[in-house]
Structures are given as C-alpha cells and as structure tokens.
C-alpha cells in the first residue's frame, strides 16, 4: 500500500511527489506521456533559467529529481480508479493501492469535432459507461475511441447491450474488439431530443447513444466516475487543501483550472502534497 499515488508527471505531479517523498511518504508516480509541457518549445518565464529551457527538458529534470529523491516512477496509463476503503488504481499493466491519490494529469478532455456534438452532450452523448450504460439496456449503442480506455468502457457496455458499434473517428485502432468497427471520421451527430443517428461520410448509422472514450482518460474522466465535483468548464473542484469532495482524492495543476502555467502547477503540487501529508496523519 502506497501512502500516496500521484497520477501525472508534469510540474504539479512531480513537485507533489518530491514533497511527499521528503515527508517520508511512500509515493508512487504514474505517468503516461509528457503532456502539455512536452509540447512547449521554449520556457522563458519560469524562475531560475537564465538560458531558455525546453518543455521536455524541464519535465525530464523534474522526473530525474523525483527519482533521485526516491520516488517510485512507472510509465503506464491509468484506466480506472476505485475508491472503497482505500484507492485502487488500475493501469494497463497493473494495479496499485494507495491511501490517497493526486490527480495531476493536466487538462485534456477528448471531444469530437463532428457537427452537432455539443448540442447532444447529456442528451445521448455520454462520457461514462458505468454511469449511463444501464439506461441503454438492449438499445443501439455507439462508442468512440481507439485504445484501452475504449476497450474498458466497451466491456462495461456489453453487460447492457450486444448491439454495439465502435467508431474510431479516423484514429488507428490500437486494441482488438469483437464489435463492428467504423474507421472513418464522424461528420455529424443527429437526433431529435436525443441522439439517433451518426453520420460518417455518406453512411448513416442508427444509434440511441454515443459514448465517448477517446484516447486516454483525463483527470476529469476519473473525477466524473468517482463522483468528484467538476465546474462548468470541466475543471475539478477542490477546496483550500486541494482536496476534492471525495476524502483522500486530491487534484492539482491544469486539471483544477486557474492560471495554466508551470509556476502555478508547481505551487499546486507543493500545497497538495502538504495537505496529503496532513491527511495521511489524520486518516
């Protein structure tokens, strides 16, 4: 059992892990890729770098620093988090138990560019199979996605209906599925009050719902499934202690909104770690 599991290896996650490790908490950091920072070419507004530094380099240094201080770091993708008595984090390759979890995976919510998409969110477009799957028992289900996250959601949906179509929306399918796959880009989503048609080029597919599970789950996807509050912009809501409404679940960095800058993310990470340290004492 880890004292703390940090999800995300950017400035918020790495800083939190460094602080937690220095508080002598047994800390696991799970990271998938280099996130938003990895795409930043020059950083000229962050304290202490006389010469400019690239995003990937700063990120690498942060991770190397965390590793030097004893943080256990794995490269893996988190698919699901359970919270019963403690937290169980399921990744593609394993399962990890922790007393607290920090979500620090940045801001990225997968959306479709298809016409009509925004009009049907909550009206036949769903972000959560475990929340809404039951409503579509024996109905025609569509799911968009291309990786393990989609596979995970698809498995849940199979309990409710066998009539399922998988849409990859032009992305490469990276997992095997036993349902029909439509690989072209979705052009339009149509319906009356709720979704009833998916248009792909000149083809029309009749569905009653479209589940979204594109790419990898984001911090807000985890938060949604666990019952943490999101604000209207899908940012995770935390209190002054950086804790969500779920005891032991913390969030930091871009996933909670505000200034989307490294300096704010590292500050979040430090604050969250201090709160998690305090939480571990009281729990």
């Amino acid at each position, binding site marked *: 059992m880890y004292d703390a599991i940090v999800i995300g290896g950017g400035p918020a996650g790495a800083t939190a892990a460094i602080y937690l490790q220095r508080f002598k908490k047994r800390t696991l950091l799970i990271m998938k890729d280099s996130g938003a920072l990895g795409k930043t070419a020059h950083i000229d507004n962050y304290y202490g770098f006389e010469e400019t530094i690239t995003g990937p380099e700063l990120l690498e240094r942060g991770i190397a620093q965390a590793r030097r201080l004893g943080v256990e770091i794995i490269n893996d993708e988190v698919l699901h988090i359970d919270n019963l008595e403690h937290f169980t984090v399921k990744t593609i390759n394993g399962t990890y138990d922790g007393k607290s979890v920090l979500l620090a995976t940045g801001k990225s919510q997968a959306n479709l560019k298809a016409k009509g998409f925004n009009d049907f969110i909550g009206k036949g477009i*769903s972000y959560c199979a475990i929340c809404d799957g039951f409503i579509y028992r024996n109905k025609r289900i569509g799911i968009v996605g291309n990786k393990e996250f989609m596979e995970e959601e698809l498995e849940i949906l199979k309990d409710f209906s066998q009539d399922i179509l998988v849409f990859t929306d032009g992305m490469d399918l990276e997992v095997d599925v036993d349902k029909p796959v439509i690989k072209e880009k979705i052009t339009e989503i149509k319906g009356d009050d709720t979704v009833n048609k998916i248009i792909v080029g000149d083809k029309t597919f009749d569905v009653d719902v479209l589940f979204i599970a594109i790419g990898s789950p984001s911090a807000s996807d985890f938060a949604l499934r666990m019952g943490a509050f999101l604000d209207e912009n899908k940012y995770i809501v935390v209190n002054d202690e950086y804790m969500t409404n779920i005891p032991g679940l913390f969030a930091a960095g871009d996933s909670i909104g505000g200034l989307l800058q490294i300096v704010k993310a590292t500050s979040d990470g430090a604050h969250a770690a201090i709160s998690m340290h305090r939480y571990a004492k009281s729990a």
Partner: protein
Amino acid sequence: MPIKVTTETFKTEVLESEVPVIVDFWAQWCRPCLMLAPVLEELEADLEGKVKIAKVNVDEEGYLANQFRISSIPTVLLFENGKLKNQVIGLMRKEDLKRRLGL
C-alpha cells in the same frame, strides 16, 4: 427529507405539488448520483419548505425515465405548477445547481 416517487405517485407528489419540486433521477450504481444526494438534501434545507425534493430510481421506474427522456444520470428536473421548468444534467456543487435551476 427527499421523498421517493414512483410512476403511481408522480402525479400527486410532483405535478400537483403546491411548491416547486426538484426531481432527481438516480440509481444505486451511479457514483455521481450518490454524491449528488447530500447536495440536494442541503439545498432542501437551505430553501426551508420552498421546494420539495423527489427521487426517482431509474432502475425501478423505467417508465418515468423513458417519459422524460432521461439519457444520462444524475439528471435533475424542476417542476413548478405541474410544468417542467428546468433540466440540469450531471453532478455539481450546490451553488452551481441552484443557479442552473434558476432557484
């Protein structure tokens, strides 16, 4: 305290209610729904008798869920004088819910 509403009692409890009614469509297996429950209870306490909270379990009341085209839960409907006045989908904080319902 929130009351449980069924297909049979919907008319008397919701449509014929003297005060506005917030109807919460929920299910036991839906984590966000479980987290919304205390939010609604607090809202009811804050509004001291000015609204009533009614809960519809979509597992048991498929007819009602269908009738109101519930496609995602939690969904919260606000009824006033027998008419549907507002609809809000998803878990949110009390202040956000209050504002979105127009209360």
